[in-house]
Protein backbone atom coordinates (compact mmCIF):
# COMPACT_ATOMS: atom_id res chain seq x y z
CA UNK A 1 0.00 0.00 0.00
CA UNK A 2 1.21 3.50 -0.74
CA UNK A 3 1.74 5.80 2.20
CA UNK A 4 -0.03 8.67 0.50
CA UNK A 5 -3.12 8.32 2.73
CA UNK A 6 -2.94 10.71 5.65
CA UNK A 7 -6.62 11.24 6.34
CA UNK A 8 -9.69 9.09 6.08
CA UNK A 9 -13.34 10.11 5.80
CA UNK A 10 -15.91 8.82 8.26
CA UNK A 11 -19.60 8.97 7.38
CA UNK A 12 -21.24 8.75 10.76
CA UNK A 13 -24.92 8.12 11.44
CA UNK A 14 -26.27 10.93 13.64
CA UNK A 15 -29.62 10.84 15.36
CA UNK A 16 -30.35 13.78 17.64
CA UNK A 17 -34.05 13.52 18.44
CA UNK A 18 -34.15 16.81 20.34
CA UNK A 19 -33.11 18.81 17.30
CA UNK A 20 -33.79 16.71 14.20
CA UNK A 21 -36.70 14.29 13.82
CA UNK A 22 -34.86 12.25 11.19
CA UNK A 23 -31.34 10.81 11.32
CA UNK A 24 -28.64 12.10 8.98
CA UNK A 25 -25.05 11.32 8.10
CA UNK A 26 -22.25 13.60 9.22
CA UNK A 27 -18.86 13.50 7.57
CA UNK A 28 -15.63 13.76 9.55
CA UNK A 29 -12.13 13.87 8.08
CA UNK A 30 -9.84 12.23 10.62
CA UNK A 31 -6.07 11.67 10.51
CA UNK A 32 -5.15 8.16 9.40
CA UNK A 33 -2.78 6.17 11.56
CA UNK A 34 -1.65 2.72 10.62
CA UNK A 35 -2.46 1.13 13.97
CA UNK A 36 -5.84 2.79 14.42
CA UNK A 37 -9.05 0.90 14.83
CA UNK A 38 -12.40 2.41 13.82
CA UNK A 39 -13.01 3.08 17.53
CA UNK A 40 -9.81 5.18 17.70
CA UNK A 41 -11.10 7.33 14.87
CA UNK A 42 -14.45 7.78 16.68
CA UNK A 43 -12.61 8.72 19.87
CA UNK A 44 -10.64 11.27 17.86
CA UNK A 45 -13.89 12.78 16.59
CA UNK A 46 -15.32 12.91 20.12
CA UNK A 47 -12.15 14.39 21.68
CA UNK A 48 -11.13 16.83 18.96
CA UNK A 49 -14.03 17.56 16.63
CA UNK A 50 -17.51 17.04 18.08
CA UNK A 51 -17.97 16.12 21.73
CA UNK A 52 -21.68 15.48 21.21
CA UNK A 53 -21.11 12.27 19.20
CA UNK A 54 -22.60 9.41 21.23
CA UNK A 55 -21.49 5.77 21.14
CA UNK A 56 -20.62 3.02 23.61
CA UNK A 57 -17.17 1.65 24.31
CA UNK A 58 -15.10 0.51 27.23
CA UNK A 59 -12.27 -2.02 27.09
CA UNK A 60 -10.70 -1.46 23.63
CA UNK A 61 -9.74 -5.15 23.45
CA UNK A 62 -12.73 -7.18 22.39
CA UNK A 63 -13.75 -8.30 25.87
CA UNK A 64 -16.50 -5.98 27.07
CA UNK A 65 -18.70 -6.20 23.98
CA UNK A 66 -19.83 -2.55 24.14
CA UNK A 67 -18.51 -1.09 20.91
CA UNK A 68 -20.49 -3.12 18.38
CA UNK A 69 -21.57 -0.98 15.40
CA UNK A 70 -22.33 -1.45 11.73
CA UNK A 71 -19.24 -0.53 9.73
CA UNK A 72 -19.68 -0.45 5.96
CA UNK A 73 -22.79 -2.58 6.37
CA UNK A 74 -21.22 -5.30 8.52
CA UNK A 75 -21.80 -5.67 12.27
CA UNK A 76 -18.35 -5.53 13.93
CA UNK A 77 -16.61 -4.63 17.17
CA UNK A 78 -15.10 -1.24 16.28
CA UNK A 79 -12.21 -1.88 18.68
CA UNK A 80 -11.18 -4.87 16.58
CA UNK A 81 -11.63 -3.42 13.07
CA UNK A 82 -8.54 -1.87 11.50
CA UNK A 83 -9.07 1.29 9.46
CA UNK A 84 -6.29 0.00 7.21
CA UNK A 85 -8.56 -2.82 6.03
CA UNK A 86 -11.27 -0.33 5.01
CA UNK A 87 -9.11 2.09 2.97
CA UNK A 88 -9.49 4.23 0.98
CA UNK A 89 -12.87 4.92 2.56
CA UNK A 90 -15.16 6.66 3.19
CA UNK A 91 -16.01 4.46 6.15
CA UNK A 92 -19.72 4.41 6.94
CA UNK A 93 -20.60 3.87 10.59
CA UNK A 94 -24.18 3.03 11.60
CA UNK A 95 -25.72 1.76 14.82
CA UNK A 96 -26.36 -1.97 15.17
CA UNK A 97 -29.31 -3.11 13.08
CA UNK A 98 -32.46 -4.46 14.72
CA UNK A 99 -32.31 -2.26 17.82
CA UNK A 100 -34.14 1.05 18.24
CA UNK A 101 -31.68 3.95 18.18
CA UNK A 102 -31.64 6.18 21.25
CA UNK A 103 -29.05 8.59 19.93
CA UNK A 104 -26.36 8.54 17.23
CA UNK A 105 -24.70 5.10 17.44
CA UNK A 106 -26.35 4.04 20.71
CA UNK A 107 -29.04 1.40 20.42
CA UNK A 108 -31.43 0.21 23.10
CA UNK A 109 -30.43 -3.36 24.03
CA UNK A 110 -33.17 -3.72 26.64
CA UNK A 111 -34.98 -6.32 24.54
CA UNK A 112 -32.07 -8.76 24.86
CA UNK A 113 -31.70 -7.99 28.56
CA UNK A 114 -35.36 -8.95 29.02
CA UNK A 115 -35.01 -12.15 26.97
CA UNK A 116 -31.80 -13.47 28.49
CA UNK A 117 -33.18 -14.45 31.95
CA UNK A 118 -36.06 -16.28 30.23
CA UNK A 119 -33.65 -19.02 29.13
CA UNK A 120 -32.34 -19.32 32.72
CA UNK A 121 -28.65 -18.95 31.95
CA UNK A 122 -27.41 -20.29 35.25
CA UNK A 123 -26.77 -23.75 36.69
CA UNK A 124 -29.97 -25.38 37.91
CA UNK A 125 -29.57 -28.32 40.29
CA UNK A 126 -32.35 -30.75 41.14
CA UNK A 127 -31.17 -30.68 44.73
CA UNK A 128 -28.88 -28.15 46.29
CA UNK A 129 -25.97 -29.87 48.00
CA UNK A 130 -24.45 -28.64 51.25
CA UNK A 131 -21.18 -26.71 50.98
CA UNK A 132 -19.20 -29.41 52.78
CA UNK A 133 -20.07 -31.89 49.99
CA UNK A 134 -17.20 -30.22 48.13
CA UNK A 135 -16.75 -29.11 44.54
CA UNK A 136 -18.61 -30.60 41.62
CA UNK A 137 -15.69 -31.70 39.52
CA UNK A 138 -15.67 -31.81 35.73
CA UNK A 139 -13.34 -33.53 33.32
CA UNK A 140 -11.69 -31.50 30.53
CA UNK A 141 -14.05 -33.26 28.10
CA UNK A 142 -17.08 -32.15 30.09
CA UNK A 143 -15.83 -28.57 30.07
CA UNK A 144 -15.08 -28.88 26.35
CA UNK A 145 -18.74 -29.73 25.69
CA UNK A 146 -19.90 -26.21 26.57
CA UNK A 147 -16.77 -24.03 26.71
CA UNK A 148 -17.28 -22.53 23.26
CA UNK A 149 -20.71 -21.18 24.21
CA UNK A 150 -19.41 -19.67 27.43
CA UNK A 151 -17.22 -17.27 25.43
CA UNK A 152 -20.18 -15.01 24.55
CA UNK A 153 -19.61 -11.36 25.51
CA UNK A 154 -23.20 -10.19 24.77
CA UNK A 155 -21.96 -7.78 22.10
CA UNK A 156 -25.20 -8.18 20.11
CA UNK A 157 -23.45 -8.54 16.74
CA UNK A 158 -25.34 -11.81 16.19
CA UNK A 159 -28.70 -10.08 16.73
CA UNK A 160 -27.66 -7.28 14.37
CA UNK A 161 -26.66 -9.85 11.72
CA UNK A 162 -29.90 -11.84 12.04
CA UNK A 163 -32.55 -10.88 9.46
CA UNK A 164 -35.11 -12.93 11.40
CA UNK A 165 -34.60 -10.84 14.54
CA UNK A 166 -34.87 -7.70 12.45
CA UNK A 167 -38.23 -8.77 11.04
CA UNK A 168 -39.56 -10.78 13.99
CA UNK A 169 -38.47 -8.94 17.16
CA UNK A 170 -40.10 -11.57 19.39
CA UNK A 171 -37.52 -14.16 18.28
CA UNK A 172 -35.50 -14.99 21.38
CA UNK A 173 -32.35 -14.68 19.29
CA UNK A 174 -28.91 -16.24 18.71
CA UNK A 175 -26.93 -15.26 21.83
CA UNK A 176 -29.73 -16.16 24.27
CA UNK A 177 -30.07 -19.63 22.69
CA UNK A 178 -26.29 -20.15 22.64
CA UNK A 179 -26.16 -19.23 26.33
CA UNK A 180 -29.04 -21.62 27.06
CA UNK A 181 -27.02 -24.35 25.36
CA UNK A 182 -23.98 -23.37 27.42
CA UNK A 183 -25.92 -24.50 30.51
CA UNK A 184 -27.82 -27.36 28.85
CA UNK A 185 -24.50 -28.98 27.92
CA UNK A 186 -22.95 -28.46 31.35
CA UNK A 187 -22.62 -31.78 33.21
CA UNK A 188 -23.49 -30.03 36.51
CA UNK A 189 -26.79 -28.68 35.20
CA UNK A 190 -30.23 -30.28 35.48
CA UNK A 191 -32.31 -27.47 33.96
CA UNK A 192 -32.67 -28.60 30.34
CA UNK A 193 -36.39 -29.37 30.76
CA UNK A 194 -37.11 -25.91 32.16
CA UNK A 195 -35.26 -24.25 29.27
CA UNK A 196 -37.07 -26.45 26.75
CA UNK A 197 -40.29 -24.58 27.57
CA UNK A 198 -38.80 -21.34 26.27
CA UNK A 199 -36.59 -22.69 23.50
CA UNK A 200 -38.90 -25.07 21.65
CA UNK A 201 -42.05 -22.97 21.86
CA UNK A 202 -43.13 -20.09 19.63
CA UNK A 203 -40.31 -17.60 18.94
CA UNK A 204 -37.76 -20.10 20.19
CA UNK A 205 -35.37 -22.09 18.01
CA UNK A 206 -37.98 -22.78 15.31
CA UNK A 207 -38.07 -19.12 14.27
CA UNK A 208 -34.50 -19.60 13.02
CA UNK A 209 -34.17 -20.38 9.31
CA UNK A 210 -30.41 -20.94 9.52
CA UNK A 211 -29.16 -17.95 7.60
CA UNK A 212 -25.96 -18.57 9.56
CA UNK A 213 -24.81 -14.95 9.57
CA UNK A 214 -24.75 -14.82 13.40
CA UNK A 215 -21.87 -17.28 13.45
CA UNK A 216 -20.04 -15.41 10.69
CA UNK A 217 -20.00 -12.11 12.59
CA UNK A 218 -19.39 -13.53 16.09
CA UNK A 219 -16.07 -12.11 17.34
CA UNK A 220 -15.66 -14.94 19.85
CA UNK A 221 -16.38 -17.94 17.56
CA UNK A 222 -19.31 -18.95 19.73
CA UNK A 223 -21.21 -20.29 16.67
CA UNK A 224 -24.75 -19.46 17.82
CA UNK A 225 -26.17 -20.84 14.53
CA UNK A 226 -24.61 -24.21 15.37
CA UNK A 227 -26.06 -24.04 18.89
CA UNK A 228 -29.54 -23.38 17.50
CA UNK A 229 -29.41 -26.19 14.91
CA UNK A 230 -28.12 -28.64 17.53
CA UNK A 231 -30.94 -27.62 19.80
CA UNK A 232 -33.43 -28.26 16.99
CA UNK A 233 -32.04 -31.82 16.80
CA UNK A 234 -32.39 -32.19 20.59
CA UNK A 235 -35.96 -30.84 20.56
CA UNK A 236 -36.93 -33.17 17.70
CA UNK A 237 -35.46 -36.21 19.44
CA UNK A 238 -37.30 -35.22 22.60
CA UNK A 239 -40.56 -34.98 20.71
CA UNK A 240 -40.07 -38.45 19.20
CA UNK A 241 -39.23 -39.83 22.63
CA UNK A 242 -42.42 -38.34 24.06
CA UNK A 243 -44.38 -40.04 21.25
CA UNK A 244 -42.82 -43.41 22.04
CA UNK A 245 -43.20 -43.00 25.80
CA UNK A 246 -46.30 -40.90 26.36
CA UNK A 247 -46.82 -39.48 29.81
CA UNK A 248 -43.12 -39.25 30.58
CA UNK A 249 -42.72 -35.65 29.49
CA UNK A 250 -45.53 -33.18 29.26
Amino acid sequence: MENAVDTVTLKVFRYRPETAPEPEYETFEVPYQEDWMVLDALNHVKDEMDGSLSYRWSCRMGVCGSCGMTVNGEPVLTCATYIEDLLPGPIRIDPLRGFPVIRDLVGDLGDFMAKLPRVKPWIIRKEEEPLDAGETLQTPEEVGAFRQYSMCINCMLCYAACPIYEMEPDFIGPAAIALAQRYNLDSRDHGADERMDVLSRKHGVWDCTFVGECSVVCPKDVDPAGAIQRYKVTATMDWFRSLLRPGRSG
Partner: protein
Amino acid sequence: MRSREEGAATGPDRATTGSDRAPPPAEAGTRGGEIPQELHAMGDRGAPPVQENPRHTRYHPKWHRQPTPLTWWTRNRRYRAFILRELTSVAVLYAAVLLLIHLLALDRGPESHAAFQAWLARPGVVAFHLFVLAALLYHTVTWLNLAPQAIALRIRGRRVPSRIVLLAHHFAWLALSAIIVAGLLFALGDPGEAPWP
Protein backbone atom coordinates in the same frame (compact mmCIF):
# COMPACT_ATOMS: atom_id res chain seq x y z
CA MET B 1 -30.96 24.99 59.33
CA ARG B 2 -30.72 28.03 61.52
CA SER B 3 -28.69 30.05 59.09
CA ARG B 4 -31.13 29.28 56.28
CA GLU B 5 -34.02 30.52 58.41
CA GLU B 6 -32.04 33.65 59.11
CA GLY B 7 -31.45 34.04 55.39
CA ALA B 8 -35.15 33.65 54.75
CA ALA B 9 -35.84 36.20 57.42
CA THR B 10 -33.40 38.70 55.98
CA GLY B 11 -34.70 38.14 52.48
CA PRO B 12 -37.81 40.32 52.71
CA ASP B 13 -35.76 43.00 54.45
CA ARG B 14 -33.36 43.15 51.55
CA ALA B 15 -36.21 43.10 49.11
CA THR B 16 -37.93 45.99 50.84
CA THR B 17 -34.77 48.01 51.34
CA GLY B 18 -33.68 47.58 47.71
CA SER B 19 -37.13 47.73 46.17
CA ASP B 20 -36.22 50.72 44.00
CA ARG B 21 -33.66 48.71 41.97
CA ALA B 22 -33.69 45.19 40.58
CA PRO B 23 -30.90 42.89 41.85
CA PRO B 24 -28.17 42.19 39.28
CA PRO B 25 -28.46 38.71 37.66
CA ALA B 26 -25.16 37.46 39.16
CA GLU B 27 -26.46 38.12 42.63
CA ALA B 28 -29.75 36.39 41.88
CA GLY B 29 -27.83 33.31 40.80
CA THR B 30 -25.88 33.02 44.05
CA ARG B 31 -28.92 33.13 46.28
CA GLY B 32 -30.98 30.03 47.16
CA GLY B 33 -29.28 27.87 44.45
CA GLU B 34 -31.62 29.12 41.76
CA ILE B 35 -30.32 28.91 38.23
CA PRO B 36 -31.32 31.70 35.88
CA GLN B 37 -33.91 30.45 33.43
CA GLU B 38 -31.96 31.36 30.25
CA LEU B 39 -28.84 29.42 31.27
CA HIS B 40 -30.88 26.34 32.21
CA ALA B 41 -32.61 26.22 28.85
CA MET B 42 -29.35 26.51 26.97
CA GLY B 43 -27.92 23.28 28.37
CA ASP B 44 -24.28 23.30 27.29
CA ARG B 45 -22.01 26.08 28.50
CA GLY B 46 -21.46 28.57 25.72
CA ALA B 47 -23.26 26.43 23.15
CA PRO B 48 -25.23 28.39 20.59
CA PRO B 49 -28.99 28.04 21.00
CA VAL B 50 -30.23 25.14 18.88
CA GLN B 51 -33.49 24.91 17.04
CA GLU B 52 -35.62 22.41 18.87
CA ASN B 53 -37.49 19.59 17.22
CA PRO B 54 -41.14 20.45 17.99
CA ARG B 55 -42.05 16.73 18.17
CA HIS B 56 -39.41 16.07 20.80
CA THR B 57 -40.54 15.55 24.39
CA ARG B 58 -37.67 15.69 26.81
CA TYR B 59 -38.54 12.70 28.99
CA HIS B 60 -40.21 10.59 26.32
CA PRO B 61 -37.81 10.84 23.40
CA LYS B 62 -38.81 9.20 20.15
CA TRP B 63 -36.41 6.42 19.32
CA HIS B 64 -35.46 5.82 15.76
CA ARG B 65 -36.44 2.50 14.21
CA GLN B 66 -35.00 1.56 10.86
CA PRO B 67 -37.55 -0.36 8.77
CA THR B 68 -36.29 -3.55 7.15
CA PRO B 69 -36.22 -3.08 3.39
CA LEU B 70 -37.65 -5.85 1.19
CA THR B 71 -34.21 -6.04 -0.42
CA TRP B 72 -32.44 -6.88 2.87
CA TRP B 73 -31.02 -10.03 1.28
CA THR B 74 -29.00 -8.01 -1.23
CA ARG B 75 -26.80 -6.66 1.59
CA ASN B 76 -24.10 -9.28 1.22
CA ARG B 77 -23.11 -12.43 -0.65
CA ARG B 78 -24.00 -14.78 2.20
CA TYR B 79 -27.57 -13.43 2.45
CA ARG B 80 -27.94 -13.90 -1.32
CA ALA B 81 -26.64 -17.48 -1.07
CA PHE B 82 -29.18 -18.12 1.72
CA ILE B 83 -32.12 -16.73 -0.27
CA LEU B 84 -31.06 -18.79 -3.29
CA ARG B 85 -30.94 -21.91 -1.10
CA GLU B 86 -34.45 -21.17 0.19
CA LEU B 87 -35.83 -20.43 -3.28
CA THR B 88 -34.34 -23.56 -4.84
CA SER B 89 -36.40 -25.62 -2.40
CA VAL B 90 -39.26 -24.88 -4.82
CA ALA B 91 -37.32 -26.98 -7.36
CA VAL B 92 -37.25 -29.84 -4.85
CA LEU B 93 -41.03 -29.61 -4.51
CA TYR B 94 -41.40 -29.46 -8.31
CA ALA B 95 -39.25 -32.58 -8.79
CA ALA B 96 -41.31 -34.49 -6.23
CA VAL B 97 -44.62 -33.47 -7.85
CA LEU B 98 -43.23 -34.33 -11.31
CA LEU B 99 -42.38 -37.82 -10.09
CA LEU B 100 -45.91 -38.27 -8.71
CA ILE B 101 -47.44 -37.11 -12.03
CA HIS B 102 -45.15 -39.50 -13.85
CA LEU B 103 -46.39 -42.38 -11.67
CA LEU B 104 -49.99 -41.26 -12.21
CA ALA B 105 -49.49 -41.29 -16.01
CA LEU B 106 -47.99 -44.76 -15.76
CA ASP B 107 -50.98 -45.92 -13.73
CA ARG B 108 -53.46 -44.61 -16.34
CA GLY B 109 -52.07 -46.85 -19.04
CA PRO B 110 -49.71 -46.82 -22.04
CA GLU B 111 -51.43 -43.96 -23.93
CA SER B 112 -51.33 -41.58 -21.02
CA HIS B 113 -47.72 -42.50 -20.36
CA ALA B 114 -46.73 -41.97 -23.99
CA ALA B 115 -48.35 -38.53 -23.97
CA PHE B 116 -46.45 -37.63 -20.85
CA GLN B 117 -43.21 -38.89 -22.44
CA ALA B 118 -43.87 -36.72 -25.48
CA TRP B 119 -44.38 -33.69 -23.25
CA LEU B 120 -41.13 -34.42 -21.42
CA ALA B 121 -39.26 -34.59 -24.75
CA ARG B 122 -40.28 -31.11 -25.88
CA PRO B 123 -37.21 -28.86 -26.15
CA GLY B 124 -38.68 -26.17 -23.90
CA VAL B 125 -39.48 -28.72 -21.20
CA VAL B 126 -36.01 -30.27 -21.48
CA ALA B 127 -34.41 -26.83 -21.10
CA PHE B 128 -36.61 -26.07 -18.10
CA HIS B 129 -35.74 -29.39 -16.49
CA LEU B 130 -32.03 -28.73 -16.95
CA PHE B 131 -32.59 -25.49 -15.04
CA VAL B 132 -34.49 -27.41 -12.33
CA LEU B 133 -31.62 -29.90 -12.14
CA ALA B 134 -29.12 -27.08 -11.59
CA ALA B 135 -31.34 -25.65 -8.83
CA LEU B 136 -31.66 -29.10 -7.23
CA LEU B 137 -27.90 -29.58 -7.24
CA TYR B 138 -27.35 -26.13 -5.70
CA HIS B 139 -29.92 -26.85 -3.00
CA THR B 140 -28.49 -30.28 -2.22
CA VAL B 141 -24.85 -29.18 -2.04
CA THR B 142 -25.53 -26.06 0.07
CA TRP B 143 -27.86 -28.01 2.33
CA LEU B 144 -25.30 -30.75 2.93
CA ASN B 145 -22.68 -28.07 3.57
CA LEU B 146 -24.68 -27.00 6.64
CA ALA B 147 -24.47 -30.43 8.24
CA PRO B 148 -21.24 -29.89 10.25
CA GLN B 149 -22.77 -26.92 12.07
CA ALA B 150 -25.86 -28.88 13.07
CA ILE B 151 -24.09 -32.09 14.06
CA ALA B 152 -21.63 -32.18 16.94
CA LEU B 153 -20.32 -35.74 16.91
CA ARG B 154 -18.10 -36.76 19.78
CA ILE B 155 -16.01 -39.89 19.69
CA ARG B 156 -14.18 -40.72 22.92
CA GLY B 157 -14.77 -37.20 24.23
CA ARG B 158 -13.24 -35.46 21.22
CA ARG B 159 -15.25 -33.57 18.65
CA VAL B 160 -15.14 -35.12 15.18
CA PRO B 161 -13.66 -32.46 12.82
CA SER B 162 -16.32 -30.72 10.76
CA ARG B 163 -14.46 -31.60 7.55
CA ILE B 164 -15.04 -35.30 8.24
CA VAL B 165 -18.77 -34.74 8.89
CA LEU B 166 -19.01 -32.75 5.66
CA LEU B 167 -17.17 -35.34 3.54
CA ALA B 168 -19.25 -38.16 5.05
CA HIS B 169 -22.47 -36.43 3.99
CA HIS B 170 -21.30 -35.74 0.45
CA PHE B 171 -19.97 -39.27 0.15
CA ALA B 172 -23.26 -40.75 1.37
CA TRP B 173 -25.18 -38.59 -1.11
CA LEU B 174 -23.00 -39.63 -4.07
CA ALA B 175 -23.07 -43.30 -3.01
CA LEU B 176 -26.90 -43.31 -2.72
CA SER B 177 -27.23 -41.57 -6.10
CA ALA B 178 -24.90 -44.14 -7.69
CA ILE B 179 -26.92 -47.01 -6.20
CA ILE B 180 -30.19 -45.55 -7.55
CA VAL B 181 -28.75 -45.01 -11.04
CA ALA B 182 -27.22 -48.50 -11.08
CA GLY B 183 -30.53 -49.98 -9.94
CA LEU B 184 -32.42 -48.12 -12.67
CA LEU B 185 -30.00 -49.26 -15.39
CA PHE B 186 -30.26 -52.83 -14.13
CA ALA B 187 -34.07 -52.77 -14.00
CA LEU B 188 -34.40 -51.24 -17.46
CA GLY B 189 -31.99 -53.75 -18.96
CA ASP B 190 -31.95 -52.50 -22.54
CA PRO B 191 -30.78 -48.88 -22.54
CA GLY B 192 -32.50 -48.44 -25.90
CA GLU B 193 -35.84 -48.45 -24.12
CA ALA B 194 -34.89 -45.94 -21.49
CA PRO B 195 -37.81 -43.65 -20.58
CA TRP B 196 -35.86 -40.50 -21.33
CA PRO B 197 -35.60 -39.02 -24.81
